[in-house]
């Protein structure tokens, strides 16, 4: 009788200890799987595409993730590019994006800046309705750089237009070049 009473608790204790051991080890393995990073390479959901008014000398980068637009500006006249560039949502679900200023040369304070009046980028939807404006203007030799636009919701499988207007001051010198870098921030 004493033997039976003694055996059961020992067996239970051993099983309990092995159970705790297995549970702890399993939880550790599960945790390590959870912490394992998994990165899948896919195409960009928001990509650039050439518009009907694609300026000559412009470059659409690899995978359509960057673009270099070669734009002109006329002295004392507004030059309009109605559809130089499209922003395309390649996904079936909608995604949001915004335009954000990164850099511009010549820098403010340089005399060349005074040759420009404005360089405006307008995001238009498929119906031609303006969704956001992103305007660079000058005050004497200082650039007034735009704040980032609010995040715009681009519906799935849709292309929106980047409409551009440029203007140089009356009597502006030719061959003055302004280089600006604009980032497109996309929320997945």
């Amino acid at each position, binding site marked *: 009788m004493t033997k039976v009473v003694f055996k059961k608790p020992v067996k239970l204790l051993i099983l309990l200890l092995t*159970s705790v051991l297995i549970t702890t080890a399993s939880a550790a393995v599960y945790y390590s*799987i959870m912490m394992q990073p998994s990165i899948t390479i896919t195409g960009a959901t928001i990509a650039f595409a050439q518009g009907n008014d694609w300026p000559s000398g412009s470059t659409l980068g690899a995978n359509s993730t960057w673009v270099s637009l070669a734009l002109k500006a006329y002295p004392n006249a507004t030059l309009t590019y109605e559809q130089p560039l499209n922003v395309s949502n390649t996904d079936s679900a909608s995604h949001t994006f915004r335009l954000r200023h990164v850099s511009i040369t010549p820098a403010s304070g340089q005399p060349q800046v005074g040759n420009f009046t404005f360089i405006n980028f307008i995001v238009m939807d498929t119906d031609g309705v303006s969704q956001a404006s992103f305007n660079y203007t000058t005050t004497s030799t200082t650039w007034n750089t735009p704040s980032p636009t609010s995040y715009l919701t681009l519906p799935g499988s849709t292309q929106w237009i980047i409409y551009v207007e440029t203007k140089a001051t009356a009597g502006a010198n030719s061959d003055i070049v302004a280089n600006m870098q604009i980032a497109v921030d996309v929320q997945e």
Partner: protein
Amino acid sequence: MESPLLPEFLVFLGIEVFLMLSLLNCLLDDRLPNAFSYIYQIAALFGFGHLVISREFFSAFGDHVRFWYGLIYLIAALANVVAINVYFGVVKRLWTLAKAWLGAVIFPAIVISIVFVFDYGIVQRATLPLQIGLIVSAIATSLSIAYPLVRAVDRSKKSGKKGGEN
């Protein structure tokens, strides 16, 4: 949207069910074969091996394969819970124990499993047949548990005494 749960969580749940069965077997060893406690420990170890293999070949298996392997293991664990109930009820004729097992072990184990499988399925946008199957199985489980309990309560009311006949 990514689920905070990985498909391996179902394996983890299955391991816990096997370990619980092992301990309950030890407590009820006068009514169940002695070897069951150790067999369930080995089954839990098998699940642990499953987790280790999943980790090593994480990128080789797709989400679907990992989910189905996990679900099969969990179903095997739950099937053992049900099998013990059948053993108590049909083979040993221990009706009170069978009913207690039904309410205290089978019901929580199945409901918890369904909740986690459902959670994973909804977040991962699982196919409709899987979700319908889970809903049907949840309803069937609830009814199959409620029916004998209601009958037992009725019988005890009619006879005017406690319904346990163990």
